[in-house]
């Protein structure tokens, strides 16, 4: 590609090795990985258990917000709603209403960018923005840290883990580390790994429909989405039909101010999608079936039979993490939720 570069940078021997390795890599990759557009969940990173405990505490700590009433968990309900907000729009500190429906935190770590408009690159960036956004925590790092500093136990936990103790960076790191251990495999992951009995026939048929109708064009990869942007309304105008235009509807345009980015959103991950109603950035759709049919209409520009749609919905339900699946089926009043998967802990 660039002879000068290669000659300059890589000694011939290395180039040869790289070439052989690259070729071998492509070959083996092609042979080894299934050619499914959806990929199984990789193992979670190993993270210091103390850090996870701290991160979990902070995740549930309402002191992070200006009025001391809102925690991360307030809008990312880990037990009932698949890490998302069951309210159409989240309510931040001091009752300030947000502009979008809070998406799931469960597989956020595997998304290529954070927020519907992708304005944050990493989880840490995302946390930093949440802290200062009025509709979220509506506070400042200084205020937040001084509040936490009064808690001797939290301070000492920080000191035990981080050489520099309590700081904005370390608060973000602890929460993000916790969030990185949230992804949990679903029955469909087992299916992808070769366990054909992990899903039922209908569910498998639903997956075939999912691929055949082209849903998979956007909802693919490890996160079944979450790795690209797409315009909402490829065919047809969703916003016109819905009415009541809002600034948040402009999506990525709000970040880039690029005409092409109007109505463009991050394709959400469909993992745990059965739990994360209501749907879409505006939280306007309460059921999965309705959401699927809207997708057919505005994204695929086609219609499907009710039977096919039902199969697709069945398939989508296999994407629920097995840990959450159990907690859902056992979701009786007063029953403790099942413990969350934590990846391989140290």
């Amino acid at each position, binding site marked *: *590609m*660039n002879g*000068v*570069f290669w000659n*300059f*940078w*890589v000694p011939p021997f290395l180039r040869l090795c790289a070439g052989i390795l690259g070729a071998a890599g492509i070959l083996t990759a092609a042979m080894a990985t299934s*050619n*499914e*557009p*959806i*990929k199984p969940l990789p193992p979670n990173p190993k993270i210091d258990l103390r850090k996870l405990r701290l991160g979990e505490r902070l995740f549930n700590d309402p002191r992070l917000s200006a009025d001391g009433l809102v925690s991360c968990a307030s809008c990312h309900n880990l037990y009932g709603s698949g890490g998302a907000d069951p309210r159409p729009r989240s309510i931040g500190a001091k009752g300030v209403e947000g502009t979008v429906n809070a998406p799931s935190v469960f597989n956020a770590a595997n998304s*290529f*960018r954070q927020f519907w408009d992708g304005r944050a*690159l*990493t989880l840490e960036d995302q946390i930093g923005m949440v802290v200062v956004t009025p509709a979220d925590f509506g506070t400042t790092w200084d205020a937040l840290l001084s509040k936490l500093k009064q808690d001797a136990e939290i301070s000492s936990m920080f000191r035990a883990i981080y050489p520099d103790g309590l700081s904005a960076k370390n608060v973000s790191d602890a929460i993000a580390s916790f969030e990185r251990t949230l992804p949990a495999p679903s029955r469909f992951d087992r299916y992808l790994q070769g366990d054909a009995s992990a899903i039922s026939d209908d569910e498998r048929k639903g997956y075939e429909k999912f691929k055949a109708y*082209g849903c*998979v*064009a*956007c909802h*693919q*990869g*490890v996160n079944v989405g979450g*790795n*690209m*942007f*797409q*315009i909402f309304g*490829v*065919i047809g105008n969703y916003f016109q039909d819905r009415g009541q235009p809002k600034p948040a509807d402009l999506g990525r345009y709000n970040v*880039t101010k*690029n005409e*092409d980015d109007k109505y*463009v959103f991050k394709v959400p991950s469909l993992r745990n999608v059965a739990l994360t109603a209501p749907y879409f950035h505006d939280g306007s759709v309460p059921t999965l079936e309705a959401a699927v049919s809207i997708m057919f209409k505005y994204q*695929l*520009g*086609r219609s499907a039979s009710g039977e096919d749609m039902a199969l697709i919905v069945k398939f989508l339900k296999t994407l629920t993490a097995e840990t959450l699946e159990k907690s859902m089926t056992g979701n009786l009043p007063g029953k403790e939720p099942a413990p969350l998967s934590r990846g391989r802990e140290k």
Partner: protein
Amino acid sequence: MNKRLLRNILAAFLVLTVIGLLAFLVYRTQAVDSQLHNEQTTALRELRQIDIRLDINVLRSRMGLNNDYDPLSAPVSQIDALCSHLSELLGNDGSTLKSLPELRAVFDQKLRVIDQFKAQNAILRNSLHYVPTVSDEIQLLIRKNAEAGSPALKRLNDMLVRVLNDTLRYNLMPDSATSRQIQISLAQMQRELPLYPEEIAAATQGFINHVHVILRQRAVEIMLMARLGEIPVPSLIEQMGKALDQEFALQMQEIDHYRNYLAIYSAFLLCIVFYFAMRLVSSFRMIARANQQLQEVNEFLEQRVRERTADLRSALEDLKASEAQLIQSEKMASLGQMVAGVAHEINTPLGYVRSSIETLSTQINEKVRHFCQDAQALLNAMYTGRVDEARIAACLSAAHRSSGELKGSFFDDVAAMLRDGLYGIDQIRDMVLNLKNFSRLDRSRVTLFRIEDGIESTLQLARQQIEHLKITKDFGTTTPLRCSPSQINQVFLNIITNAAQAVSPKDGLIRISTWMQDTSHVVIEIADNGKGISSENLKKIFDPFFTTKAIGQGTGLGLSIAYKIIQKHGGQIEVSSREGKGSAFLITLPTEPPSDPEEGEELADGAAA
């Protein structure tokens, strides 16, 4: 002094400068961190690899070889992390750092285009996938339809086949002519839509829509691919790599310079060191020479010292001899004093003896001779054979008269006179005995000796000096000592004499006490209520020749001799005194002296001499 300090400071400064310059040069020759350079180039190379992989994956997605976009989205965070890592590695490394934000911007640009590409590609693929399906569906519907033979539907069927073919061809090789042709056909379809049965019309609308999408998205794709090709990521990375290399080369060059400087400087320093070494060697040589001379001088001095020592030794011997003489003369002096006392003591009984013997001799001469003469005449008168009565009678009466004189108190007087004489003689004999006892001339050797006996005989001898004083004796039961009695007596005499001289004649008091300090030590205390010793003098009283007494009265040797004798016996002598109140001498003596017999003999000899 000040000058020296200044010189020292200057020297220290000079040394520091020399070392500092050396350290600086060494530092400059090591400053370039090839490890760092390696890491920097590695990071750049990784970025380049990611970029290449991105390009490849864009192509793969474009060709439909990738069926997910993870390979196009995962690098987003990798690039971010690598750029941050690189900016850390570069630190404040001039020109290369300046292009880093540019690199980030260019990557951002690329990622934005790739995001658009993904969206576009998903739609295009979807439509490309859908168009043949829906075309088949429509054809099936036409065939099933009752009016399958109608010209409109027939045209639709033809158009469907053509448009589908054109669209697929257009997708592979986009050209405006095909596009225009497709547009025309689609427009026609759109126009004829009301002619189709409802179901077919709906499906055809979908077909039209998706072919439009394909045309639109394919154009977008072409545009995006062109844009992607224009983004100068590789050239920028290459440029940065070159800049890094250039910087590195420059630094290496600089290091080479400094290495040369260092070599020169080191050579210079070596010269200096050599010079100093030479000087050191020469000064060593000088020192060696000086040492030799010193040794010679030393030898000479030693010779001198030896001579002087010999001199001193002989002087010391002389001194010892004179000291012995002195001791001897002191002894003589005290003997002289004593002799005066002793003479006085002897003189008195001698007077007794003499006068009684004188009287006796006159008495005997007058009275006994008369009687003897008269008795002789009577005897003669009686034995002549011729009796001369008258003469006999006269002789008889004369003899009677003279015998009468011998009668009565005469013999009493003679006996008394003889008694007096004997008493005097006894006194003299006692005196002599005491004198003998005191000096023990008879037994000069070391012997067992009762201290109290020594004190008694000393008091006897010093009787004349102490007769007007009150003497208190407070003797404990003490173990006899092994000592030279004459010497110990001399000590007592000296101290008692001093005490007697110190006290006033009116109420002078001397108390002599003895007791056992422990089973092997005897203590003798001789205390007086005399004038005492000033604290200044107290330090000197044991010095030889120290005296406060008038010339002729004291030699100042008494206590020094006492001290020496007690010391030789392994004892101690201490004194405590208060001016005007009195003094007390405390002598502690071991029952067995530590000295060997020979020394004891010497002691005895000294005393005998």
